[in-house]
């Protein structure tokens, strides 16, 4: 069963329309595999930042923070899923939360698949040949983006125009979520400060 699911993940890579339809309606996807893909995305990105060849890697390797990259990628992933779910709920989307997480995770598969060979390739390219490296990197990102759009479109049963407007709204929703989180964060901090000051006041007076 598990083997089938892994095979199916690679099937969606080349047959996105069929693949994502089956994930939505026949339960062929798995949330675990999807999260694993996101995890591998993070790993691939960190390794690329840290170990890509000197000629193509402008990042200061002393300041590469893998944990931060990993955290950012997961936060962005969940923000997108929650934002997308909130928007599509109101816009007659057919996808459930579990479909969104599964399909979006599956759609990111090209990134680890191509980032690893690109990082390897970067070790042996010279400046004249670095376009091959960038070809792989850009291809993976384009492919991933295309799959994200397609997956979302199919699991919600949208037309392309509606899908694009939904994605724009999703970005807005993500920003609103971030804003609310920040708001709550500062509010709770102020509340904590308030309680702390009451506590100190009591300590000194009583």
């Amino acid at each position, binding site marked *: 069963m598990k083997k089938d699911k892994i095979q199916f993940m690679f099937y969606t890579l080349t047959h996105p329309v069929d693949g994502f339809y089956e994930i939505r309606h026949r339960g062929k996807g798995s949330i675990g595999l999807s999260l694993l893909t996101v995890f591998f995305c993070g790993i691939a990105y960190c390794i690329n930042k840290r170990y890509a060849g*000197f000629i193509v890697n402008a990042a200061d390797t002393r300041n590469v923070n893998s944990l931060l990259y990993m955290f950012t990628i997961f936060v962005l992933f969940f923000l997108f899923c929650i934002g997308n779910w909130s928007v599509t709920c109101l816009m007659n989307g057919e996808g459930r939360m579990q479909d969104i997480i599964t399909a979006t995770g599956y759609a990111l598969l090209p990134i680890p698949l191509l980032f690893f060979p690109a990082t390897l390739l970067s070790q042996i390219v*010279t400046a*004249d040949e670095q376009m091959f490296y960038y070809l792989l990197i850009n291809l993976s990102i384009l492919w991933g983006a295309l799959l994200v759009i397609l997956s979302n479109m199919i699991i919600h049963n949208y037309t392309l125009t509606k899908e694009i407007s939904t994605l724009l709204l999703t970005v807005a929703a993500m920003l609103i979520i971030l804003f609310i989180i920040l708001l709550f964060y500062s509010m709770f901090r102020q509340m904590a400060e308030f309680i702390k000051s009451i506590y100190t006041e009591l300590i000194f007076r009583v």
Partner: protein
Amino acid sequence: MKRFFMILAAALLILSEPLTVSAKEILPYDTYNYDYRGKAVSTPAAYNPEKTVFGENLSCGSFKNPKDMFITDDGTIYIADTGNNRIVVLNSDMEVLQIIDSFVNNDKKDTFNSPSGVCYTEDGELYIADTNNKRVIALDGSTNLVKIIRDPRSEVLSSDFDFVPLKVSVDYAGRVYVIASNVYQGIMAFNQESEFMGYFGTIHVRITLAQKFWRLFSTKEQRAKQLQYIPTEFTGLDIDDEGFVYATNLDSTGGQAIRMLNPKGIDVIQKNHNGVRALGGDIRFRMGGDYQGASEIVDVKIRDGGIYSLLDCNRGRIFSYDSEGNLLYIFGGMGTQEGTFSQPVAIEAYQDLIYVLDASRNAIFVFEPTSYGSNINQAVGLRYNGDETKAVAVWKKVLEMDSNNEMAYSGIGKAYLSSGENKKAMYYLKMGVNKEYYSIAYKRYRNELLRENLSWILTAILVGIILLRVSRRIIKSRIRRIRS
């Protein structure tokens, strides 16, 4: 217990050491440089203040708002003492040789009015930008008039053009280049017959996308009230031995404050191929508060080995670049201590000393190189003259003093590259974050590896192919056997 006494003894020994620090170790300014990523990194000082020369201490009396200075190849210093309407001539030991405050013009005594530019040619002629008299005067050594440039007439000049020369420079062919006030078209060039030849090295206005965008929405009245987009004025100039005019200008973005103009007036300056490609002094600066804005480069001096130094009057810093546009070192600052400026206006160099004229403190500041600075100068000079292998030893000395010096790593790497030691070159070029040359070194190294191991690689491929074929055949025959 024994250990305790040993520590105590060591502590006493350290404390008993006289805690004297010579004045020069405490510099009144920060010395730093920018690394590949444009981050400011502290470096050892390249130049230390050696002495400050005030007019009061000389026989000529105090300077008053001096605006320009020129030092000849033999060390004679000409100072345009603008406020005192005179030219003061010093020798390299800072003794007054001559004070020029008048000259003979048509058998009559003539004087200057706020001379703010001075230049001495190889033929022994002294050119003075006599600003408020609206003329440029050329005198021979004994203050006899050679020629006067005034009232330039040309089709490109309006009939009521007001010629207010600020800075003057002369090339080997006797062409005179004048920076004039309120002239935005470029440097004014005059031929030997004092005729106006045209504008030189015009800086074209660049309007950013945002500016274009806002202009789209503004009405005619608003547009009239907006700032006019005019090219920046040139601020200072110097001419090298080959006749290239180095001219500084103000650039509020900090991108390019120096231009190297060929005889056609086209900018041919080299920007570094690596890192932040800027020739405008400070790369990072604040946009508000104290010390805000880009460096305001007011003068340039071309020094030995293709090095040129820019003088910033905003933060009082001196930026030195090599002929390839690499920033070598930065020193200087604003203040009232020795070695800091309040209104620096002109920079000159003689031998390995750097001279800066301050118009507000009415003084000449002399800076001498430290061993760090002179080693960099020497190494850059060696590379400039094509002697890269000799430069390696000097760069290694620089690295001993500053192990973050990317220029030094690159310099050593380039030398190893040209001598064919690609592996070593790769290490040094990587340390110097020089991607361009690293790529070349790596390519050669890779070819070397391939050539040496070609037989192995080919054998491995051949064996691989054979193994693949054989294994496939075995698998097929097994499958057949299982089926049958």
